[in-house]
C-alpha cells in the first residue's frame, strides 16, 4: 500500500532580538510558501504554549522541523516541554556556517544576503521535508 504523505510542520523560533531569529523565520516561509507548499506548514510557538487545540494537534500528528535562531534553542526545547520531539532540529547559525559568503544582517527584516541564504537553505531542507513526509506514522 502506498504511504500517504503527511504534512511536515516547520516551527521557527521567531526570536525578535537577533538576526538569526529573522533568518529562521524567513527560511520557514521559503519552505512553506515556495519550496514545499502544501506539504510544509507553519505553526506558531506561543500557540502551542497557550494550548491552542489546532496547533497542538498539528504537532502531535505530524513530524516537526524546528529552526532555532540562537544557542538557546527555544523552539526545540519548548516542543520537548510539551512532550514532543523534533524530527529534525536545525540551528540557523549553522545555515550561515555552511554558506559563509551569505552573511545575514538586519533584525526585523533581512538584508539581501540573508534572504538569499534563506532561499538556499530552504532548498537544501526540501529533501528532509520530503523524507519526513513519506515516513508515514510519527
Amino acid at each position, binding site marked *: 500500500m502506498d504511504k500517504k504523505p503527511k504534512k511536515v510542520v516547520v516551527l521557527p523560533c521567531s526570536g525578535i532580538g537577533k538576526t538569526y*531569529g529573522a533568518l529562521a523565520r524567513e527560511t520557514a516561509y521559503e519552505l512553506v510558501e515556495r519550496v514545499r507548499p502544501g506539504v510544509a506548514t507553519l505553526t*506558531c510557538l506561543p500557540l502551542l504554549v*497557550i494550548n491552542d487545540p489546532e496547533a497542538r494537534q498539528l504537532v502531535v500528528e505530524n513530524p516537526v522541523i524546528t529552526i532555532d535562531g540562537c544557542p*538557546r534553542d527555544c523552539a526545540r526545547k519548548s516542543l520537548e516541554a510539551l512532550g514532543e520531539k523534533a524530527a529534525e532540529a536545525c540551528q540557523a547559525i549553522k545555515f550561515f556556517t555552511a554558506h559563509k559568503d551569505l552573511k545575514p544582517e538586519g533584525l*526585523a527584516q533581512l538584508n539581501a544576503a540573508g534572504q538569499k541564504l534563506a532561499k538556499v537553505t530552504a532548498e537544501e531542507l526540501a529533501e528532509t521535508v520530503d523524507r519526513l513526509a513519506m515516513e508515514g506514522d510519527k
Partner: protein
Amino acid sequence: MIDIQITKVGIVSCSGEGIPEGTLCRLACRKVLDELRPGETVTICLPLFIAGGEEERTFASRYPTITVDGCEKLCAAKATEMLSGKLSKSILIPEVLKKRGIAHPAKLRNFGPEEAPAVQAVAEEIAKAVDEVLEEG
C-alpha cells in the same frame, strides 16, 4: 554601576507566524525599540520567555511589560500572564488598525512602502502605551 536604574518598559511581541499582522507586530515593535523609544524600552523575546529564559522572566516580573498581539488568540498577553503574572498593557493590532482606519496588510513578509502606514500607526500606539506606563510610574 547603575544600581538605581531608570525604569524601562518591556515589549513582548507575538510571533505571529503565518499571518500578516504577525509581521506587522514584529516590525512595529522593532520601530519602537530602535527609533521611537530607544533607551526606554527593552525587547522581551517571547520564545525565550516561554522556554524559561531567566533574564526575560526576571525582567517581566520586576518591570512593566506591554504585550502586542497580531490576532485575537492573544498569545503574547496570555503567555506573559501565565509565566510572569502581570502585564501593564495589552495591545491588539486589529483594534489599532480599526481605530486608525488603516487596512490590514495583505503580505506575509517583505513589507514595503504600502505597509509603512500600518507599521507607523501600530508603532505610535505602542510608544503611547510606553509613555503612559512610565508616567504611571
